[in-house]
């Protein structure tokens, strides 16, 4: 079992390591970490900090994908949650009070959860296809966020809020600790309880799971709600980074990056088996790629193309069909393609 596990994650890890090596050769400063005061700086530290929102969103996406679903609304939920938190703090007489900020964050995340639960309701109870169900909110969410901020980009001054994305604890960005906490929490909940394996069962074979007595409706509902919570928190990190609730830019395209990260991490879009570690590696891979693009000075208009090419290469390396093509000649009995399709 250990062998299979390491084998499954070997390629994503290899891809990430290769990226880091290429970066280091191109600019040795990539791996350098400098100490200013009691804070660490450097490209790797930036990756740790900047990846936090994507990490949160990808964890949620992973759980949803495992149930055979997909959540396109995560970016919109980020926008709503940022708008809610900033509007509350903006309207409060004590924006620098920790209590105010925590309250605002709590309400914003709760609303993220409600939006996720709405998705879950559409999918699990009404039976709408996940892509359509979450598309609704993806389109409507940003409108809701604009409604909350009254059509403006709300900006605030609040030290505790600013700390979320820009603060440091024992030399490392606070946002990094948030992502570590999220990873640990998700791994703990999914793997220390049976939630993970039941989620996988529902994703692989919903009818068999139902007949085996699994509460599949609740599990699917919960997956979308969890995705909503995580996206809500990602919205806090994002808006804390800019200290503005920009409903149009917050979490734009993040659903696509999150799906990429999950797939890079070895979870199939057909649902079923997922690995938290794989998703973490997927997120770091994407974030490293983005940092590479920035460093290479690729014009921002062409950057997505560059990213796309890099992703295609990584996915090709991971493709089982390509791998079997390579190993086919070595083996005597070869399953041919129609057999695989059956």
């Amino acid at each position, binding site marked *: 079992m250990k062998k299979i596990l390491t084998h499954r994650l070997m390629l994503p890890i290899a891809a990430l390591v290769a990226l880091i090596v290429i970066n280091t050769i191109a600019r040795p400063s990539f791996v350098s970490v400098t100490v200013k005061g009691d804070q660490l700086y450097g490209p790797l530290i930036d990756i740790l900090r900047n990846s936090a929102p994507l990490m949160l969103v990808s964890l949620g996406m992973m759980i949803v994908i495992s149930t055979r679903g997909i959540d396109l609304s995560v970016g919109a939920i980020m926008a709503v949650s940022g708008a809610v938190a900033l509007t509350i703090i903006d309207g409060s007489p004590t924006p620098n009070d920790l209590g105010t900020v925590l309250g605002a964050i709590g309400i914003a995340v709760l609303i993220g959860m409600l939006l996720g639960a709405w998705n879950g309701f559409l999918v699990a109870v009404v039976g709408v296809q996940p892509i359509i169900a979450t598309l609704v909110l993806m389109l409507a969410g940003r409108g809701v966020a604009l409604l909350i901020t009254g059509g403006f980009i709300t900006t605030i001054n609040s030290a505790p809020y600013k700390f979320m994305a820009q603060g440091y604890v024992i030399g490392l960005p606070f946002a990094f600790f948030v992502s570590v906490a999220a990873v640990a929490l998700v791994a703990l909940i999914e793997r220390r*309880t049976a*939630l993970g394996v039941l989620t996988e069962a529902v994703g692989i074979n919903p009818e068999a799971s139902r007949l085996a*007595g699994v509460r599949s409706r609740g599990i699917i509902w919960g997956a979308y709600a969890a995705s909503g919570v995580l996206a809500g928190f990602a919205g806090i990190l994002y808006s804390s980074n800019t200290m503005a609730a920009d409903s149009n830019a917050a979490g734009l395209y993040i659903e696509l990056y999150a799906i990429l990260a999950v797939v890079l991490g070895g979870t199939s879009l057909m649902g079923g088996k997922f690995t938290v570690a794989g998703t973490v590696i997927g997120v770091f891979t994407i974030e490293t790629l983005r940092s590479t693009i920035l460093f290479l000075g690729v014009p921002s208009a062409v950057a997505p193309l560059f990213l796309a090419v890099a992703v295609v290469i990584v996915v090709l390396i991971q493709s089982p069909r390509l791998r079997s093509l390579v190993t086919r000649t070595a083996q005597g*009995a070869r399953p041919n393609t129609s057999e695989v399709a059956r």
Partner: protein
Amino acid sequence: MSTAKEARAIVEMRGITIEFPGVKALDGVDLTLRGGEVHTLMGENGAGKSTLIKALTGVYAIDGGSIIVEGTPREFRGTADAQLAGISTVYQEVNLCTNLSVGENVMLGHEVRGPLGINWAATHREAARHLENLGVRLDTRSMLSAHSIAVQQLVAISRAMVTDSRVLVLDEPTSSLDRGEVDQLFGVIRGLRDRGVAILFVTHFLDQVYEISDRLTVLRNGTLVGEYPVEDLPRGQLISKMIGRELDELDAISQSAARAIDRTSDPVIRATGVGRRGVLHPADVEVYDGEVVGLAGLLGSGRTELVRLLYGADRADAGRVEVRGRTARITNPRHAIDRRIAFSSEDRRAEGLVGDLTVAENIVLGIQAKRGALRKVRKSEQDTIVEEYIQALGVRPANPNALVRNLSGGNQQKVLLARWLATAPQLIILDEPTRGIDVGAKADIQRKVAELSEQGLAVVFISSELEEVIRIAQRIVVMRDRRKIGELTSHDIGVDDLVAFIADEQPQPDSPESAA
């Protein structure tokens, strides 16, 4: 037609050897297919039947031996090569496009072309001609999905015959057909045989073997046991050759079924007038402790429908259910599970197992679902349970970490049975637990059912193999046309009596109303 009986060899496979990493799947196997003959390939699961078929149809490359088709040695590099050589296959799960029309499916890749691309009218005419050659009349423009599996199978055969195949391989085509449909299929097969086509047939139903075959080839553990004309190999001998030992264990099972059942206390389950509009006419069923109640009837007679209502897989809209004398509302599977009722579906792949999970995960899934997500079955506990059931039921390979998807049908069924037994049920409903599995595994499962009922478990047992139902059950509920038509006690009746009862109270030859 009589010239076809000349038995000219169309395909000769000699000394076929196929190795998978670490395993010799086939070791020097011969197979000769003659024109105008139905040749049945027999063997337990894992004997190498599928591998041999895949060698013949070009799915696997052979590591040793030769394949000679009509006198020419051939080397198949893929299924296309085999098809060019005139070898076509119809698989157990029909692989056609259900979202295309019948005609499109028959002619796919061979559409009639005119100056403006495909001439659909001519294509459909051609399709209809091919279907009629098999004696099938269908609207070729109707969607394939609108037809039963049986009809889809016939469409698959016509599709194979479009390419003028000399050899037709039928891999368990009858496993999901009812009696009438099997007759229709056999009619088509006989027609093709009389036209000189060589037919290779694989099935698990012994009756069908004797009904249709001219010749048998028996495999065991990847080696050839022998080739026999069907009349030289009676049933008992065939089974012994397949499993390599004598079979008198079945007698022990009938002994067990002859036990007297105590029906004085409340039954485990008593259903009164349970039905659902358009699905099942209201029916009564009772099952007592330690009793095996068989459900007999044709496919689609309401057997599966009845047990699905009892289990809450579908919702009943009429009737009352009592569990041990107390009224029980069972409208979803969890209600049934809470009352210690278990249900193993007839479609183990779609509705039973979770293919990409391991044997161990599948076995504890039932317990885990019952406990809820938060109370995880601990690793040590899981290991104990899994080990116990792998041993008790003889699951092979005995590896808890194997993916269930990779197990043979019989072993998958055992895993499913293990999942339910691990939840300690008081009533277990087994819908076709022995369908499509080999003789050895069949005997294992029957023996286990007999043993469990002796220990007090109540069992509802559905099977299309009436012999099996008679052997294992104390009482048989007979279904026809989605209603219960009666109940029989199983001693003193034979398969013929039961068939007559299923067909009609007044005996009628060849039940004509079997089509849906």
